[in-house]
């Protein structure tokens, strides 16, 4: 049973479907972590500029994405 599952898993790993789902999951993961981290940084008094700098994006971009809700 266990070896059967391993086989299924390894067969799936070179499947584009699996790979694309992983990419999508990574985006979702990054979105969630970004939101949590930006919220925390703001609550600790970080400026938008400093947050943008750490994220490697423009101040306008980060403010547009989070400014209204944080």
């Amino acid at each position, binding site marked *: 049973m266990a070896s059967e599952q391993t086989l299924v898993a390894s067969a799936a790993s070179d499947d584009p479907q*699996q790979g694309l*789902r992983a990419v*999508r*999951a*990574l985006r979702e*993961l990054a979105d*969630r972590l970004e939101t*949590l981290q930006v919220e925390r940084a703001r609550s600790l008094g970080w400026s938008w500029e400093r947050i943008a700098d750490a994220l490697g994006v423009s101040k306008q971009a980060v403010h547009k994405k989070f400014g209204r*809700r944080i």
Partner: protein
Amino acid sequence: MFERFSREARGAVIEAQLVARATHTRAIDSRHVLVAIAESDGGPARSALTEAGVDVVQLSRSLRADLAGASGLDATALAAIGIDLDEVRRATDATFGDGSFDGVAGRSQRGGKHIPFTPDAKKALELGLREAVRLGASGIDSGHLLLGILRGGSPAAKALQSALAEAGSDDSALRDAVARGSHAA
């Protein structure tokens, strides 16, 4: 349009938002509404589904699983590239508080707490209105919503059709069941 909805039809629309929160989906499509209908305590739609032989528990369970997968956070796909989602969740919750990793899903979308309806869900509601008119009903009840979903050709319609097929039933049987309930009301 909402002022013409019956109390339980409104309830289904409200419940659909809770389904979206619970499954961490970013928009409400007709599957959310169908889950809400399938899980309702009673009402014309639920009666029609039961009458048509649909296993409503199984239907809502498979739709919920489908929706949870649609949030994109696929643990199996992440594990295949060496990321342990449970570990990420544990570490994140340790820093930001219990439940923060899953709780943030609703916030990491534009517009904050409001969960928008997809065009597919709006279309199902509009088709529900047409079904009510066609059946000569004075308002839109959950049975009409159900037929609206069935007509939409959406993933929800397909799920509903396959649930009907599994029960050895079909679209027209469900339509008839709703029509009977609609006349009785």
